[in-house]
């Protein structure tokens, strides 16, 4: 039997015989309520917006940041670190600026202060091995093809590292002056490490990173006389990109200028205590 009108004969559509079971079902949309019959108000549906030619259900207003998942995970890391009173610093730089050497020297000079290190690299555990050789706890993340650490990786690392309350946590990001700028890990501050051999114009070439950083460390100042570098120009370029940035000049290899950096760390750690 035909499902539309109940007739028993074969209906035809475009000259083709329609068998009862192939006649498409058709139902009217639900009847509007009295209020809706009197007043058609567009722009109140799920989409909250009306576009001519589109039915109300077809345009969906999203307004969601592409990095919202990462940002939400970072907020979770930040809450955990805040509750523990752990000062987390995200060390960012180009490869070879001396981040690991700076960390090893820092750990050595801080003595018995409780701390942990998360190391991010595409491959190898070389950096975590160097940190562990100082006696500090370290966890290596290999990102494989990834160009940055993200909040999920750091969250997983925190679960395994279980940093001690009131301790320092250094997160050494993948050596890259571009991508790590956009990925919040839940850290208290980004610390950009710049080698004086890199060239004074680096802050101008990679402005996002130096805008995102609270502190810039000009490392390898012992090499400055040998490479004709203008340290004042470095600082001027950093301040042009980020007028609020703090700057410390040091040499992690010789230990020159380490004291202001250690004082900065102690002060920031104290501020973090609940």
């Amino acid at each position, binding site marked *: 039997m035909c499902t539309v009108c109940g007739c028993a004969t074969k209906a035809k559509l475009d000259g083709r015989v329609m068998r009862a079971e192939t006649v498409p079902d058709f139902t009217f949309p639900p009847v509007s309520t009295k209020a809706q019959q009197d007043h058609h108000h567009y722009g109140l549906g*799920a*989409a909250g*917006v009306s576009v001519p030619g*589109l039915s109300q*259900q*077809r*345009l*969906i*207003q*999203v*307004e*969601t*940041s*592409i*990095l*919202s*998942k*990462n940002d939400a995970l970072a907020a979770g890391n930040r809450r955990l670190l805040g509750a523990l009173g752990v000062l987390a610093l995200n060390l960012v730089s180009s490869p070879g600026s001396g981040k690991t050497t700076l960390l090893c020297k820092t750990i050595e000079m801080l003595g018995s202060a409780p701390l942990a290190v998360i190391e991010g690299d595409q491959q190898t555990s070389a950096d975590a091995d160097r940190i562990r050789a100082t006696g500090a706890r370290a966890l290596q993340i290999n990102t494989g093809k*990834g*160009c*940055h650490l*993200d909040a999920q990786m750091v969250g997983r690392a925190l679960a395994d590292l279980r940093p001690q309350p009131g301790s320092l946590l250094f997160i050494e990001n993948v050596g890259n002056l*571009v*991508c790590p*700028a*956009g990925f919040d890990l839940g850290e208290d501050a980004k610390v950009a490490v710049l080698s004086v051999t890199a060239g004074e114009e680096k802050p*101008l070439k990679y*402005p*996002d990173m130096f*805008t995102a950083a609270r502190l810039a460390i000009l490392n390898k100042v012992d090499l400055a006389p040998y490479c004709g570098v203008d340290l004042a120009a470095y600082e001027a370029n950093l*301040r*042009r*990109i*980020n*007028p*609020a940035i703090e700057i410390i000049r040091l040499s992690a290899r010789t230990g020159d200028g380490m004291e202001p950096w250690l004082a900065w760390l102690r002060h920031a750690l104290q501020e973090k205590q609940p």
Partner: protein
Amino acid sequence: MHELSLAEGIRSIVEDQARTHGFSRVTRLRLEIGRFAGVEKPALAFAWDVVMKGSPAEGAELEMCDLPGLALCYGCMKTVEIDSRLSPCPLCGGGKLIPQGGDEMRVKDMEVV
């Protein structure tokens, strides 16, 4: 930078929305991208086709809308619109500016069936 990760972020937003709103296919998706967001549009367009395969947004049209770059000038303490991160302040000519907006990257809306 990392346009493939961004495309994967968009895919997960699409999948979340498909579950919430119960649609099966996206025909068009609009992104808002700030001038300072560091997004390379051709790279994102390339990653788009690859990453959306097998998702409700496979074959969907991607539209990218630019948002202006805003910065606070430390010279005149006014918020101004600038074209590039290294542009001087259009009001006072000062060179020290800190971005105040234009780093957005978000999915604005999508047309679905």
